């Protein structure tokens, strides 16, 4: 039935919208911290895409229940990949913020157009 069909793809459409919001923020905004926030939204959208891959209708989280035999489980592999990707995202964010702090100290501003004029 149509609605259920549409909902099946709602996750991927929200992934596309979030990706665009993040990508727009990274490109269009001049403030360096706003760019980093946009970058983290951009990466969160990718995590959403991976995790919405692993859901199985009627399945539960892939921690095997001791007693139950015919229990359907969701796919563990995208979750492992995203566990790694989340920590990669935080690491890049921390490094980016350290660079922004140093730029503020040396240039006095964190607006990209003012930095370009300064040199």
């Amino acid at each position, binding site marked *: 039935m149509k609605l259920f069909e549409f909902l099946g793809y709602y996750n991927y459409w929200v992934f596309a919208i979030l990706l665009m919001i*993040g990508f727009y923020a990274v490109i269009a905004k001049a*403030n360096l911290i706003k760019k980093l926030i946009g970058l983290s*939204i951009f990466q969160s959208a990718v995590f959403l895409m991976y995790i919405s891959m692993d859901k199985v209708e009627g399945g539960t989280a*892939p921690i*095997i*229940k001791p007693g139950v035999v015919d229990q359907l489980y969701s796919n563990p592999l995208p979750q*492992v990949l995203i*566990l*790694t990707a989340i920590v990669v995202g*935080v690491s890049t964010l921390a490094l980016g913020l350290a660079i922004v702090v140093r730029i503020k100290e040396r240039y006095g501003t964190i607006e990209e157009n003012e930095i370009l004029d300064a040199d």
Partner: protein
Amino acid sequence: MTIVFAIFLLTMLVITAVAIVQSSNLFVSVMLTSIFSLLMSTNFFVLDAADVALTEAAVGAGITTVIFLSALALTATQEKPNRSGRGIALIVVGLTASLIIYATFDKPRLGDPDAPVHQHVAPYYLDNTMEQMGFPNVVTAVLSSYRGYDTLGEVFVVFAACIGVLFILDARTGTGPKYVTRKMTGLRHHLIPQVVGRILVPFIVLFGLYVQFHGEYGPGGGFQAGAIIATAFILYSLLEGEQAALRAVPRSAQLGLVICGALMFGMVGVLCMIMGGEFLDYSVLMENPVTARQIGIIVIEAGVGMAVCGAMLSIFHAFAARSAEDTDEAV
């Protein structure tokens, strides 16, 4: 039922993202980012990803918000409006959006069991974890043993971020590393949060250790535990002030934690090589392969937990120390 959750949570996610990008006050954006990560974590939980939800909770609510705020404290909080780059941005963004929307048509529907993803590699993990690893949490098994090499790379990404932040923020030309700690002693006249904080911090650390060693049987593991314990110490330093926190966990101890965490992970792998197996092949550590794998995974997760905790703490203290003497212009 998941459909109702999906609609509510995902629409809220989009609204928050738009609000984050629109608001010109950076403080507001950071606060909305913490709501964004809360929503992401709930989304992950609804989509059956318990471990990922716990990681997003521990990392998103605790560490990302605090690092953003400490960076904001050192830079400006008001974004200057800038109309220049909008045209190209919209074109590029529109192009990528059309590419992705074009791709979504042939994708399998959310949750349909015969999607190719569930046919090939995943069933092996689900069937064999119980008898090869002896514990039910398949995600921890895949994370630390089947794809342990990824996690090793991951620990070294955290290690790289930690030495990167220390390297970039320590650029004091001439003078040695003088860590003038913050003159402010935490939330000065907030007695009640301090008292509650003193009660809460040990419980958060206890919960962190529970998550660390309970990783095989329920959602948990090294990353989550490291992040939670780091959040506990960050809360302690927020309430008691920088000096007390640095007395509790001095800077050298934080770096030591990161280094021996990373080395512990590496050395277990090398030990497996010496004892005849491949790198990170725990089954050679002892005669019974299942217990050998469990021992290997516990040591690995401990290494990961120490590395992540040490890294997040040293990053936080690098930012916090920075604000104390950002007055003198580092030349």
